């Protein structure tokens, strides 16, 4: 589903002395079936932005269109289930949403809420637990007996089990070890290749470079840049103002330019960097 923001403004505690703008006149499009990364400093409004997509928050003004569903300030809380079934959301530290007495029931919770039969939900739970790289034998255990990394995977399985078309990920790998991190990110990439739309909030620019096809930069509630990562990471203005940091490969390439290398565009992934260095060394 294509997701469109039109002049979306969100104010926390409007009409009070503590009012503050979470989003300030944001307009942009998130393309269908693409992997879009949203970056920005802590408190910049990334999480506020994505909470509008499944109407957990409503705009103070402006409209958001998700597929054929339009969310306006007047949208009421009734009948939001179809929207929330289509847009799955993995929150920061999603393991805090676990509550059932077995892993299986917890994964089944989402699909059942969205009207799936118990049999379908159970089937989905068995499929999802394998998808997130855990053993089926864990299904009978209590989620609170699992390790932190396993809990994270169960929580992600619980969101994926409802089979959403769009998946929003709010720093899904924060606090995971490097191997777990890569497995989870690869999983999301493969989901996208199977036709899902992925929206990833992250502070990790290497993840952006390695996985995203589109990126948006948010600063103080405003959208300040959008485009393919290759181009956004070459935006000198943003880099100079410290509104964006470079992925490791690009930062390395930048230092190489001081040693006589020259790049038409900074390579942002390790592969691009390797190819470029090889070419330039052989060319000389």
């Amino acid at each position: 589903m294509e997701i469109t923001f039109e002049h979306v403004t969100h104010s926390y505690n409007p009409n009070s002395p503590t009012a503050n703008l979470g989003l300030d006149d944001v307009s942009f499009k998130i393309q269908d079936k693409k992997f879009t990364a949203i970056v920005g400093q802590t408190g910049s409004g990334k999480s506020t932005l994505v909470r509008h997509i499944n109407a957990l928050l409503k705009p103070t003004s402006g409209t958001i269109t998700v597929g054929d569903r339009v969310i306006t300030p007047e949208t009421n809380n009734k009948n939001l289930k179809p929207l929330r079934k289509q847009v799955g959301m993995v929150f920061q530290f999603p393991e805090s949403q676990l509550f059932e007495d077995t892993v299986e029931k917890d994964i089944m919770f989402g699909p059942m809420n969205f009207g799936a039969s118990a049999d379908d939900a159970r089937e989905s739970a068995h499929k999802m637990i394998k998808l997130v790289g855990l053993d089926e034998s864990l299904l009978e255990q209590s989620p609170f007996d699992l390790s932190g990394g396993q809990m994270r995977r169960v929580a992600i399985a619980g969101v994926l089990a409802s089979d959403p078309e769009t998946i929003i990920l709010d720093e899904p790998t924060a606090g995971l070890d490097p191997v777990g991190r890569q497995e989870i990110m690869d999983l999301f990439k493969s989901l996208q290749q199977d036709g899902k739309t992925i929206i990833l909030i992250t502070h990790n620019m290497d993840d952006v470079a390695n996985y995203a096809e589109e990126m948006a930069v948010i600063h103080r509630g405003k959208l300040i840049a959008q485009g393919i990562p290759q181009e956004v990471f070459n935006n000198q203005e943003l880099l100079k103002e410290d509104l964006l940091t470079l992925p490791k490969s690009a930062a390395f390439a930048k230092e190489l330019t001081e040693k006589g290398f020259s790049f038409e565009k900074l390579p942002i992934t390790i592969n691009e960097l390797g190819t470029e260095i090889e070419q330039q060394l052989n060319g000389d």
Partner: protein
Amino acid sequence: MGRYLPGDSLVYRLDPRGKFLLTFYFVGIVFLANNVASYAFLLAFVIFAVFLSKINFGFFLKGLKPVFWLILFTVALQLLFTPSANPLWHWGIFTFSKEGLVIAGYIFIRFILIIFISTLLTLTTTPIEISDSIESILKPLKKIKFPVTQVALMLSIALRFVPLLVDETTKIMDAQRARGVDFGEGGLIKRIKSFVPILIPLFVSSFSIAYDLAIAMESRGYKDGEGRSKYRVLSWDRRDNIMVIFMAAVTGILLFLRSY
């Protein structure tokens, strides 16, 4: 009751211990009033105190909101069930009389007095000042081995946790909403059930936060707080003495009006 409102006026500058104790004292003497004159006098006193605080009157009216139904219910009970020799109106078990009207009026004013004065305390005193006051007031109990510093610490930690738990609740509710939970939809049983997915994660995370806090305190060498110095020092001033004398005068006048 209200939330602390940053501001500055005489009432803000008073020692929180004095404010705390005198608020309770005032709630006590409200029950001494027994006629129109004494209630009118207490009402005048409260309005004077509200005026001194320089806080918009609207914040006090907001304090009435949560207990509005309780007030209405109590007043209605008095209006309809006060027994009387010469009722104005009588129907089945209901009796409406002049006596009932007067008692209902008194009770209504009593509610207003108590709520306004306690709202005044909570609007002008930070929760941490209140917990410091409680610690200071309980100090004499140390003699009988009552763990005053621990109780004070528990109070301030509890207060510190309130905003944290509010954030945590919002977060968990959002997560469950995203998984298709509809709070406030369906019948009573369904509504109560829909809180299970919030309460369990909330308990789990409260325990883990509490555990982390305990570890952090121990690793920084926390003992029972014995001999610990204070960052916020409470000071009893001349104006606090004046407040106590003023309150004594209010009591005197009240006692006089009572027998008037």
